[in-house]
């Protein structure tokens, strides 16, 4: 019988965020949500800004993944995240402050398109952090 669990590793450019076994991992790919279970076929896909849910036994782990890559092969799942934070490591106050600041920014600077785009991405990141933090 093949492995009943898969190995999941979340790495960011600066460190390893999470490493452990899992029954199933659900990620948000650019094409939509994606559930990976053991013995999935090898796959590579870019990830959207979103949350990553890792299910292991009765436990669940939430990770805010702010863009990156997912690769699965030989029962090993690797998330190459641009930035990633475990739910219980997120600084809620900081994310909240950022959300408020960005909302102001967007309200004020409706003029220039580029500014707005950056602020909106930043706002979405803050929102994802908050959402993930509340689940953890």
């Amino acid at each position: 019988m093949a492995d009943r669990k898969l190995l999941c590793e979340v790495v960011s450019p600066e460190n390893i965020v999470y490493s452990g076994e899992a029954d199933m991992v659900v990620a948000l790919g650019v094409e939509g949500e994606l559930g990976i279970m053991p013995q999935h076929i090898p796959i590579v896909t870019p990830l959207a800004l979103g949350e990553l849910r890792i299910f292991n036994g009765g436990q669940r782990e939430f990770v805010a993944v702010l863009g990156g890559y997912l690769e699965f092969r030989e029962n090993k799942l690797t998330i190459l995240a641009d930035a990633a934070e475990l739910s219980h490591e997120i600084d809620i106050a900081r994310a909240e402050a950022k959300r408020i600041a960005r909302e102001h920014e967007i309200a004020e600077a409706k003029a220039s398109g580029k500014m707005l785009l950056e602020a909106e991405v930043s706002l979405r990141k803050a929102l994802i952090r908050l959402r993930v933090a509340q689940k953890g």
Partner: protein
Amino acid sequence: MSKARAVLSRIKSVESTRQITKTMEMVATAKIKRAQSRIEAARPYAIKMVDVLNSVAQHVGAGSHPLLEVHEETKNVVIIPITSNRGLCGAFNMNILRRSEAIYREETAQGREVSFVAVGRKGAGYLRFAEYNIIAAHTEFTDRPTFIEAKAVADEVVEMYQEGSIDKVYIVFNHFKSALEQKPTIHQLLPVKQAEISGGGGEAEAGGMSVEHEFEPDAVRVLYDLLPRYVNTVVLRALMESAASEHAARRIAMKNATDSATDMIENLTRWYNRARQAQITQEIAEIVGGANALQEA
């Protein structure tokens, strides 16, 4: 004896200098360790990145991305020298700048335009003073490089490369070999060398090569997304190596400074003691001479 007093104050001043260099040495020693563990922590990402890139490149075939493509004619070259923001680290910055100038001469000799993207205050200052063509200067980076900082540098050159306004990019940085050795290294950042991403470069485990991946949405799109990220990673790595090397270079420089301060203090103290001794001897001679003169009277 005013000369002796002057030497005494000189000793005091050298002593306080030594205290500073000694402290800087210890601070640098502590920081090397931290910078080194940061390099270690970044390694899994870099290795995995090459791994994924490997399998994508195999699938899509060579030369299918603007960043992989070698421009027909090389006219404009960019050099990214990575220097420190602070001095007192020996030949650390000069090594980098000298290498960069060597490439500059080589490339201009072939009739190419060369410009610089300076990272670090020292390099920016030097290049500006020497009146080189500087496209951008990043002097705000800390000694704890982040992905965002690396991205700022990488995005600039990637964009210009894709537009076709530049044809080649070198990055010059101090490679951290050990706490005692830093090696100035020249790396061709763009175009990305095929060999780097297809085998050889990565630690592709046996059997890993034969895996056929499924790509979502498709391999070309994945490659487009992945390559700029790869360039970021290379820049980040260079920044991290440079940060660790800077501390290592500073430690050595400060150790040497401390040692020569110690020598100097020793010599000065010897001189001072001798002068003091001579003065006492002379005073005794004067008193004896005076007493003798009184007796004779």
